């Protein structure tokens, strides 16, 4: 975490982000490095650490589109959905802000140092904790209100139940922010939280048009027409692919579901994965790539 300029701004500093000041419990002081201008109203993209490829691709797709539409992407720098959102924003040369639980100069998680350095070039890495503070468990919940406060809307791409992502959604509601959620399979435990949010009234986001309609009143129309490929789902006549698209499965479960033997399924998985149609999850299930 070198190179980037450090800054400290108090509540009465004119550079203090106005939207954050409006929240019920704004941090007294913000420590960070990078560009202060990046702290303008943005879109928070958050989700589970233990993300499935589905959650990761949703984070990548929506954060990428929003970054290209020049909305700042706010997230927490954690593994999984958070990092996918930061990366997507960087890939589209957008602005992104990482809000750390511990001190802004402490790279957490430990492998995120290079990513955070890249975030600070056009965006910012900030924290309410003084320099050098080691992250403690209670700080993460406190941190979530800053993520919600900095942005005008919070997009939950994938969350299980129970989930820390929920506390950010609560903070968003407390600060009067919109909560957006990406639906998932009703059978997938990793999407149970985001589906719950939708049933509780969160705005459902199924494609970039939904996201655009949700964000335009809050953050203004995007500068120009932004196209992100990958939102078009190709039709498939393959029963295995269709089954997995609805619900990622392990080879043994897929064999039962399709009434065939596990060796046939293993072979199909092997070829479909190499063709880029399927992806293996870390827990052994296969789902759409």
């Amino acid at each position, binding site marked *: 975490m070198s190179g980037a300029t450090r800054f400290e701004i108090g509540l009465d500093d004119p550079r203090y982000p106005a939207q954050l000041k409006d929240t019920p419990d704004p941090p007294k002081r913000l420590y960070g490095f990078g560009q202060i201008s990046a702290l303008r109203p943005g879109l928070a993209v958050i989700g589970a*650490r*233990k993300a499935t490829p589905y959650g990761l691709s949703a984070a990548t797709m929506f954060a990428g589109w929003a970054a290209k539409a020049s909305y700042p992407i706010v997230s927490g720098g954690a*593994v*999984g959905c958070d990092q996918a959102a930061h990366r997507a924003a960087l890939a589209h040369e957008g602005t992104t802000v990482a809000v750390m639980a511990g001190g802004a100069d402490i790279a957490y*998680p430990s492998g995120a140092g290079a990513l955070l350095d890249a975030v600070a070039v056009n965006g910012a890495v900030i924290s309410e904790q003084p320099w050098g503070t080691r992250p403690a468990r209670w700080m993460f919940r406190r941190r979530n209100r800053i993520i919600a406060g900095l942005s005008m809307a919070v997009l939950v791409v994938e969350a299980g139940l129970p989930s820390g992502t929920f506390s950010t959604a609560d903070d968003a509601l407390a600060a009067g922010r919109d909560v957006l959620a990406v639906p998932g399979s009703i059978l997938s*435990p990793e999407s149970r939280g985001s589906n719950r949010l939708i049933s509780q009234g969160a705005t459902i986001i199924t494609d970039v048009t939904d996201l655009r309609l949700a964000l335009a009143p809050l953050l203004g129309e995007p500068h120009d027409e932004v196209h992100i490929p990958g939102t078009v789902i190709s039709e498939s006549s393959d029963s295995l692919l269709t089954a997995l698209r609805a619900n990622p499965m*392990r*080879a*043994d*479960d897929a064999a*039962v579901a399709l009434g065939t*033997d*596990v*060796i046939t399924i*293993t*072979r*199909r*998985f*092997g*070829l479909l*994965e*190499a*063709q*880029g149609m399927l992806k*293996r*999850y*870390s*827990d*052994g*299930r296969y789902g759409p790539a």
Partner: protein
Amino acid sequence: MCAHCTVRTGTLAGVEVLPVDVEIDIGPGLPSFAIVGLPDTAVQEARERVRSAVRAAGYDLPNARIVVNLSPGPLKKHGTGFDLPIAIGLLVATKQIPAHPFEFVTAVGELSLDGRIRPIPGLLAHAMMARKNGCSLLASREADHYVSLNGVAYCGIESLAELRSGLPVAHSRVTTHDRTPKHAVDFSEVVGQDGAVRALVAAAAGAHNVLMIGPPGAGKTMLARRLPTILPPLGEEERLESALIHSVAGLDDTDVLSGARPFRAPHHTASTAGLIGGGSPPRPGEASLAHNGVLFLDEMPEFGPATLQSLRQPIEDRLVTLVRAEGRLSFPASFSLVGAANPCPCGHHGDTGRACRCPASTVERYRSRIGGPLMDRIDMVCEVWRPPPALIVANRHGTTSAKLRDQVSAARERAARRSTTATSKMSGAELISACSMSGSVTSDLEMIANHHHLSGRGVIRLLRVARTLADVDEKDCVRSDDLAEAIGYRCGTVS
């Protein structure tokens, strides 16, 4: 009074017995009993056992200066097997028993204080040394079954007292062993694990190392314990090699001699010396005891990292080389490695209906405990999931071991017909020609290799497994299906 006598015996060095001559000199001087020639404590204690046993068997011990020299001098001697040759030497030197019967005899055995003779570890190795030198082996009668080796003239005696009337007639054993070993377990007891059974059949057919990953109670250990039942019985040479190691380690070698492949399952607290061999004198470890059989490491990530990594060299060289100050010793260790591991510390990552409580980083760390270089030597990783309870309750039977064993034998024969080199030892070029892939299969191979960023070694490993899978399916050419199945056995550990 002045008398000499020399009796042949031997001492263990690795799995070999080196010949040792026991020289006895009884001469004038103050009464004493000394053993020289680098004896260890056990050999020194022979003095007391010999003294008591000789008296108990009704002989006299001369009241003179007794010197026992174990030659060659620089070789360290250990064990209790020197009791019997020392006693015989004493009795021959004092003319209490005749000398001529012992001219072409190698004697080895421990004495009890009442003159009985006990067996010692490594008798099979002693028997082989005796056979090589054209001698007969004199040892305990209790150990009759241990030395069931063709062409060995074996004299079993119960007590020192029997030697008074000379030597019992040595008999050469011609043993015929039951060719099909009996097993207490069978694959038919395994239900709903078709994928894992298939992987084990392939592992048995191609001598691949395999790692099973799955939640606790899914049946990993059950599957592994049944692997020996589908391996073809040991060949004549292999039996001897494996039995020799068992004999040296002081274990029962009757099962191995009857053709059953060894199955060793050391606990995960095993030390490095326990796993690959060591100690003083060096003893074979579990890796050597599993020679020609299966080394099963249950809970593989729980093994000590250094202990686990010590297996890399034996897997590569198929033997363990121990280097000690006294010199180098080699134990054969050509085993199939079968590992079992939980997917994460809590064991339920990916388990249906059970939530895993481990953070993603912990899962990652747990899996990396086995280590890249060792994972590189594991050709197949298969997942073993809890079968649906309905299948277990239905009490149906899976494929029997006999049927699977036929598949394995047929695949091995097919591979042997194709090439004299085992698939697991083929070079890249040999392997590619052995796979005889058509154009479309080759392009599928390229696609798979590109998608998974396979290294050269990764491609070779994939082809090895694919070749074996095709052999199991009785196909001459490797098909795309075989490649796809083989890549499925990499389970996210693709490299």
